[in-house]
Each structure stands twice: as structure tokens, then as C-alpha cells.
């Protein structure tokens, strides 16, 4: 009993953690489901069919491919623009800094529906209502990922004193050498984290995308559509794979840093 009391907070915390995994468990389980009917969403029997035929509904794989493509492109765009801006904000002084900060902060404070509807208002107002699709989605995704990249890279940069760069200059490194040999390698983990975040934000976005997609379908939009008329179990295969990939990435990173920490002792 005293043991429970002593560890009460930890036990409660672990329970919350377990709670966050309940839907994941369902997703994995349902990926092996052999549904009796498309319209009833419940576990009826075990099968490997969904894993063997992931693209049974070709439109799902098409939407998935498009989401990955948009995710990669918007990650690339947002990471480059955001990293440059983060460097400017941390390392350079200029006028209008507070305005720049506000413009970067606000997209994160606005509900997605507001961001999406204002973009749509612009596209419609500018006469692009008929051209909504891949490119408008990409524009929107770079826009809302950008702020998150700036914030992530900025916090990494801000935590870094410029002493190391001074040390490099003191040791005969030119400004360019200092950047590529010292600054960039040290900021890189932050940039990588920002890129991963961007990708997952872009890949997962529904509300903004749905308003600006026209007839183009991304994976979340596909899921939304089938949610009304019967979900193919392959959706859960995709969910499971996404979960596994992210676990491999984050746990891999964690093990890597742990191994490094172990070498210290």
C-alpha cells in the first residue's frame, strides 16, 4: 500500500500514457480485421489480407502518395524558409523585429478553420476558385508549417551561445568555415526535428486542406470521405505503418542519445 502511495503519481502518469495508446492498439488490431460488412466498423476475424493488399482501393494509395508528396515538398519549403528566418531572428538585429515575431506567431494561435477559410477567401477573391488543388494545398501547408519550423529552430539556436563560433574564429576559421564546421552541425538536430514536425503536420492536416483542395484528395480527406460510407481496413494498415515508422524514428533517436550517454559513464 505504501508502495502504491509512494509511486502514485508515476502510476497515474503511466495510466494516462496507456490511455494514449488505446486507439493505437485498435488501429493495429483493425489492420488485421476481416470485416463482415464494410458498413459495420468492428473486429470480426483475423486476416492478413489487408496487409497483403494495401492498395485494394487504388484511390486510397493515390491519396496516400499525394499526401507524402505534399508532405515532402512542404517540409522542404517550410524548413528552408523557417531556418533562414530563425537565424535572422536569433543572430541578427533589425527593425520591425516585433512585427516579424507577431507574423510568425499568429498562424500558430489561429484556429485551423480560420487559416483555411482566409486562404480560401483569398483564392476565391483572386479568381482562383477553379484552380484549387495540389498547388494551393502546398502553399497552405508551407504557410502553416513555417511558424513551427521557426519556433523549433529558434529555440535550438537560442540555446546555443555564440562562444563556440568565437572559438572557431579564434582558431583561424573564416566566417564560412565557422558556419559549416561549427554552427550548422550544432543546429542540425533542431532543423531535423523541425522537418519531422513539418512533415507530420502536413501529412496529417485535414481542416485547412479540405477547404483549399478543390477536387484533389489527400489521405486524411480520403479517410474523411470513407468514414461516411464504410472504411476499408487498409486505412488501419497505413495508420499502423505510420505509427511504426514514427516509433522507429523517435525511439531510434532516443537509443542513439542513450548510447552516447552510456559512453560518458
Amino acid at each position, binding site marked *: 500500500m505504501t508502495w502504491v502511495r509512494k509511486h502514485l503519481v508515476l502510476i497515474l502518469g503511466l495510466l494516462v500514457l496507456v490511455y494514449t495508446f488505446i486507439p493505437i492498439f485498435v488501429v493495429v488490431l483493425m489492420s488485421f480485421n476481416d470485416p463482415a460488412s464494410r458498413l459495420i466498423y468492428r473486429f470480426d476475424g483475423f486476416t492478413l489480407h489487408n496487409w497483403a493488399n494495401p492498395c485494394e482501393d487504388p484511390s486510397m494509395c493515390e491519396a496516400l502518395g499525394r499526401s507524402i508528396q505534399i508532405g515532402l515538398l512542404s517540409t522542404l519549403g517550410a524548413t528552408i524558409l523557417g531556418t533562414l528566418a530563425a537565424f535572422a531572428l536569433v543572430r541578427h538585429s533589425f527593425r520591425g523585429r516585433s512585427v516579424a515575431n507577431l507574423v510568425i506567431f499568429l498562424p500558430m494561435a489561429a484556429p485551423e478553420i480560420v487559416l483555411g477559410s482566409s486562404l480560401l477567401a483569398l483564392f476565391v477573391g483572386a479568381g482562383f476558385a477553379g484552380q484549387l488543388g495540389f498547388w494551393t494545398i502546398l502553399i497552405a501547408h508551407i504557410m502553416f508549417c513555417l511558424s513551427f519550423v521557426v519556433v523549433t529552430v529558434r529555440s535550438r539556436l537560442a540555446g546555443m551561445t555564440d*562562444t*563556440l563560433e*568565437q572559438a*572557431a574564429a*579564434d*582558431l*583561424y576559421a573564416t566566417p564560412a568555415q565557422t558556419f559549416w*564546421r561549427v554552427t550548422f552541425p550544432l543546429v542540425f538536430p533542431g532543423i531535423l526535428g523541425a522537418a519531422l514536425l513539418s512533415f507530420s503536420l502536413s501529412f496529417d492536416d485535414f481542416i485547412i486542406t479540405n477547404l483549399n483542395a478543390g477536387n484533389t484528395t489527400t489521405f486524411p480527406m480520403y479517410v474523411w470521405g470513407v468514414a461516411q460510407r464504410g472504411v476499408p481496413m487498409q486505412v488501419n494498415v497505413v495508420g499502423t505503418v505510420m505509427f511504426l515508422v514514427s516509433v522507429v524514428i523517435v525511439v531510434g533517436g532516443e537509443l542513439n542519445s542513450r548510447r552516447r550517454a552510456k559512453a560518458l559513464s
Partner: protein
Amino acid sequence: MSQVVEAAASEGPSDGPGEQLADPATYDGLALRALTKHFGSFYAVRDLDLDVPRGSFFALLGPSGCGKTTTLRMVAGLETPSSGAITLSGKDITYAKPYQRPVNTVFQNYALFPHLDIFENVAFGLRRRKQKDVDKTVREMLELVELDTQARKKPAQLSGGQQQRVALGRALINNPEVLLLDEPLGALDLKLRRSMQIEIKRIQTEVGRTFIHVTHDQEEAMTMADTVAVMNHGVIEQMGAPAELYENPRSTFVANFLGQSNLIEGNIKNRAADIVTVDMHGIDVSIPAPRAHAPGDRGWVGIRPEKVLIGEVGEELDAPGNTIPGGVVSDVSFVGVSTQYLVRMPWGQELQVFSQNTGRHRLFAVGDQVELSWRPEYAFLLDAAQDAFAGAQKLDSDG
């Protein structure tokens, strides 16, 4: 070297520490001329003149905010002077970029590159300058700083003392004309600091380069450096060999910042060629003329606590000076090798007395009547216009 010491030894309050300065164009050491750095209206360094002879171990000593770090950073090229000039071996380097000058720095918290191993940290400067034989040179340097077995470890895997040696090796390997050390031992614990002091001194002797060491720790400066410059409020208060600074301070700041001093108010009665006589609360004390640095008719008579002798009322003390009667012991701290007394004098001031526990006389207790005395050649006389507490350790700061 001798020039500097002479400059410091010359007396009189008006002369700056570097009055007999070398010609920067021909001087083979580091010369700072009228160097000034201000941030807005705050002057971190003001009109600083300084010669640092080639091959010397030079310490810039002062409390935090005195401008010593700014001076160092200007020499390193990390800070641009507001005005003035820096020359090294006759070459003007005032505005040279840090990577263009033969000066290297051991940074305060070492600033080791966390993503590079020890070997690559040390090799960094060589690689930037495309030197040959990097491998061999780095091995030799790692041997010098006794880290040859740690070459492939990352900085975070080393102890504080080892990191400090990496920082030293990383700077020294470039054969800088001047090596700058910015509070290099500040992050180490006391015991390690002592051994690193000896270690750095050994390395300096071995490589024979000019070392400029910035520190706020007077003991560290005195142990390591052959010349110490005491800085305060952006200017050099006094410069010289450690023993000389300690024995013959020329300002209340130096008297208090280096060790401790009793400063007693007095009126100057007579200035002879070799002796200045001062009336100190009714008692005449004499001070050798070279040790008198007070221009007016009043001054602070200074005496180090360990130079003050304490005895029973009427006891003959082994000092040919005057005996000052009427002291009452107000505090006693027994510290083993010595006993530290506070003695309240008739004029109300408490004087510090450090008495070696030689067994010559008993331990005094609080309330005992005592007499004090000192040899005139240990006393010094300072400008009455200066603050008697300048540079004194405050209660909450370190010792």
C-alpha cells in the same frame, strides 16, 4: 620586463602604470595604446596603455566588470576597440579579424566543440590553416597536455580538468604569439584549480610563449604570473611583480583587493628625504618615502594584518617602531597555524591582527588589554582621497 617593473615601482599618484612605454613599432611584445571600449555611455576600458613583454606570464587581475575580459577580447579580436591601437611584434592588429591574428584564446567555459572529438578539437586550427603533419603535431600536443589516451572521446566524456587541458592544447597547438586565458580555472574545484595552476605554469615555461591570464582570483594571479596588472573601472591601478604589489600597494583598491590591509587615518607631519612622519591619532609613525603615495597633508597609514605584532600591556615587542597602546581584543578566530584577532583601538577603529602561533605568547581572549606595534618598513601610506574600503571583500562575496 624590467621596464614594466620600473614603471610600476616609480611613485607618485599621477603617473600611470605604463609611463615608460616602449615604441610599439619596434617592440617585440604586445602593446596596447590608449585602448578604449565603451558600450553606449558605459566605459568598459578607458585609455589603457600596456606593454606585455614577449614570453612573460602576465595576469590581468580585477573584480567582475573591471574591464579585464573586454581587454582580453579586444586582443583576441572578438571585440572591436572604440579607439586606440593594439600592436603585436610591431604589427598593428587593432582591427584584424580574430582568424587573422596570431593570438589564441582559452575560453572561460572552454568552448570545446561538442560535435568533434578531442583530436579534432585540437586539430581544428591546424586544419583551417591547411597545415601539414596534422596527425603528428596533434599527437605531440596531446602528450604535452597528457591526454594522448583520450584522443577519440567527445568533450562531454571528459572531466572538467581534462576539458580544460583540451582547451589549452587546442589553443597552444597553433603556436600563438600570445595565448589568452579567460578565467581558465573558474569552473574547476579548488583542489583541481591548484594543480592546474602549476600545470599551466609548467606548460608556459616549456613553450616559452606569452600568456595573458585574466582572473578575479588574486591568489591565482599571484601564484602563476610573473607580472600582475590590477584593473579597476577600466583602468590599470597598479602593475608589477606579485610580491611587490602586495608589499607596496599604491592605492587603497590594490591594498584591499590583494590580501587585506588595515588603513588608519593620519595627518602628515613631516616629509624628509627618506622618511615620512605621520600623526596617527596622536601617535607618530614613520613610513619609508618610497612607500608613501599620499600627495596631500593627510593619508591612510596601511599595514598588513600579518605584519602587526600583538603583545601584553608593557611588553617589549620585537619592533623598533612605536607601540600603540590601549587596544582591546574584540574578536578571536583560532585557525591553527595562526590566530586572527580584531583589536578595538582607542579611536574606535578595529584593526586586524594575524598572529603566528609560535608559542611566544599566550592566546589572547576577548576583552584582554593589548598593545600593537609594527616595523616601519612594512607600513605604507595611501592617498586620503581614496575610499578606504575600495576593493575590499564584501561580506557576501568570495575570499
